[in-house]
């Protein structure tokens, strides 16, 4: 009895600091955001007015915000799908892709390192880097060769029909490397004899991938899906730093987080921005619950 008490005290002593930090720096800002969302606070006054749900009503007719939401939703579908497909493909080639099912393609150790490079760079660095890559004149890395071949330059970031795909491309470029490593780790934990057995049974690369690798990696893929989904919902820095007019041109690349930032720090509508933040919070929570529910599956034991 006394020992149990001592034990909980002991645990409490260790947990007190992190829980306090979590309450102060994570939970409390959330709660405050909910309160600020119901005020007309403009960020500089000390006495915001309580306006109830006005901000939420206003939000429904905010065309730009809903445009941002559709961009987030498009990213939510495309980013995880493409990243996982590409990363799985690379991970498979790097680990069991040499046809005998026991090693990667030639040079796989080199590629493994190269694929991880983009993940090491800070998002802001990537964004500035790609501004140069996408430059619309002869000094752009992509348009230079295009123009040398006599083609007209593509406005990767300046054409509203193209800019969104440029953003998606950069996000993919940066995300794939990490998931190659993640899936490689998953593949490494699959017993080799499974692949050998499949091979003896006459499985080619494709059926080996579909029938052996994929089912055994399901847990890892599920984790990747949730991570990438959250990434797609709270994407901010790459859009804000890389695109023209922060989410342009003509709002063609804007996302929820960018609109929150714009409303708070450009328009000084902190109350309204908090309301947008609350909406985004529910989007993210909803997605996470939904995806964990939908992808629940029997774990394979071996």
């Amino acid at each position, binding site marked *: 009895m006394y020992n149990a008490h001592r034990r909980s*005290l002991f645990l*409490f*002593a260790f947990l*007190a*600091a992190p829980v*306090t930090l979590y*309450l*102060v*720096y994570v939970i*409390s*800002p959330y709660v*405050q*955001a909910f*309160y*600020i969302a119901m005020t*007309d*606070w*403009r*960020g*500089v*006054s*000390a*006495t*915001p007015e309580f*306006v109830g749900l*006005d901000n939420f009503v*206003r939000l429904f007719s905010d065309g730009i915000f809903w445009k941002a939401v559709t961009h987030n939703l498009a990213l939510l579908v495309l980013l995880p799908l493409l990243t996982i497909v590409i990363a799985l493909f690379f991970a498979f080639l790097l680990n069991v892709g040499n046809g005998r099912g026991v090693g990667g393609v030639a040079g796989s150790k080199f590629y493994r390192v190269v694929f991880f490079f983009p993940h090491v760079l800070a998002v802001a660095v990537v964004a500035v880097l790609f501004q140069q890559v*996408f*430059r*619309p*004149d002869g000094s752009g890395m992509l*348009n230079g060769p295009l123009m040398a071949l006599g083609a007209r*330059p593509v*406005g*990767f*970031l*300046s*054409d*509203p029909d193209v800019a969104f795909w440029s953003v998606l491309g950069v996000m993919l470029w940066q995300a794939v490397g990490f998931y190659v490593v993640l899936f490689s780790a998953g593949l490494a934990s699959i017993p080799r004899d499974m692949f050998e057995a499949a091979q003896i049974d006459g499985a080619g690369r494709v059926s080996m991938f579909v029938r052996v690798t994929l089912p055994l990696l399901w847990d890892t893929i599920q984790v990747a899906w949730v991570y990438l989904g959250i990434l797609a919902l709270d994407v901010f820095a790459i859009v804000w730093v890389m695109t*023209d*007019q922060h989410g*342009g*041109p*003509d*709002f063609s690349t804007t996302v929820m987080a960018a609109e929150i930032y*714009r409303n708070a*720090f*450009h*328009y*000084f*509508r902190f109350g*309204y921005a908090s309301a947008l933040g609350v909406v985004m919070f529910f989007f993210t929570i909803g997605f996470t619950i939904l995806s964990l529910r939908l992808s629940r599956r029997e774990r394979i034991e071996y």
Partner: protein
Amino acid sequence: MPHTPRITRRDLLRAAALAPVAGALAACATPAAKPTASSAAPAATSAANPLGVPGDKPLEVWIFDGGFGQDYAKNIHQPLFKAKYPGVEIKHNSTKEITKVLQPRFAGGNPPDVIDNSGANAMDFGALAQDGQLQDLTPLLDAPSWDDPATKVRDTIDPAVVELGTYDGKFSVLGYVNYIFGIWYSQKVFRDNGWEVPRTWDEFLKLNETIKKSGKMAPFTYAGKHPQYLYEPLLTMAAKIGGNEVLVNLDNLEDGAWTAEPMKAAAAAWAEIGAKYLMEGTAGLDHVQTQTAQNKYKVAMLPSGSWLENEQKTTTPDDFEYGMFPLPDVTGSDKLPYGTLHTTPGENFIVPSKGANPRAGMEYLRAMLSKKAAGDFSELVKTVSVVKGAGEGRQLSPGAASASKAMTEAGANTVTYRWQTWYAQLKDEAMAATGQLMSGGLTPDKYLERLQKKADEIKNDSSIKKFRR
């Protein structure tokens, strides 16, 4: 297990863990109403100290460290102030991120005393005015000027400063630099090729055609990533055609202000430039990239303001010879004559009303407006200040000389607009739409309809504070 003196240690841990909670929760994002030390009874005023600066309280100054740097404040303005008030300790600070650094100070109720609220990350004047955070600077206007006790400060500066710095009937924002807008070119290039500065829009179009055909360079460009550089000449042109009230109507969010006839003519004219004469890739380049292209003789003309020459000083060839010309005549029956210019005071200084020492803040501005301070400033950063006659007898660079000459020739025919500082949402929409107009994504009519719609939205949104002029 041996008994350890556990109480002390545990209690210590617990106390250490919990102590910051109360303080931190209180200090978070939510604003806390603090009883502000209402700028205590000002020290007695006198002829030598007309604003009643307390002799011993410190003065905190924040300078936007942008195109003009911060040396002018440290080496010109502050020594001048310090010489008069040796007892006042000046706390000099600078940042490129005015909002991030200073917005929390306003929310916390302890803003600094003088702020150069400029740059892309400046604080919204409308929000500050709405919350009564700006000191009424009228006493400064009515105080005797630094140089001559017989002249009021009001009479030493460009009257536009007072008009543009007035929010809710109170003069509260001091623009220090006079920005002069026009079309910028290289006088050398024009001379070498025999190109003439156009006086009518037809001549301008012909000039564009000539330059395009010559194959030497592209005729025209603008900072495609920042389309406010292009709606500037568009609006100035509309004002030239239809008179200053075109712009006043825009500012006052009048019904149909954007879709007025002069606006249609101007939008159509610039859309034609966008369709025919832009440098390749313009839409995706920023101001520095397009201006540098001009310095490399890849493009002949671009719209900009009188800060251009200083901004480009490191990439401009020695014999480039910047020049600026005003917008040409459009219809032959324009309401405003040839030479009409868009000018506006910029580099905006404010004194927060809830700061610790607003009296000294105003006095600091009075020192800035002295002839010596303004003249030294103009020379250091190659620009024109709002202080009358401060540039007299100073050596001017070709671009500044050209802009000053245009300013003299314009006389009273200067126009300006303020909606972009009053309604940031409308500015973002105008930027997005102007980019689309120039790249052919919007017809001139659709362009103006879209902006009219946004203006109407703002007009009907009760949460946005309205201004009038």
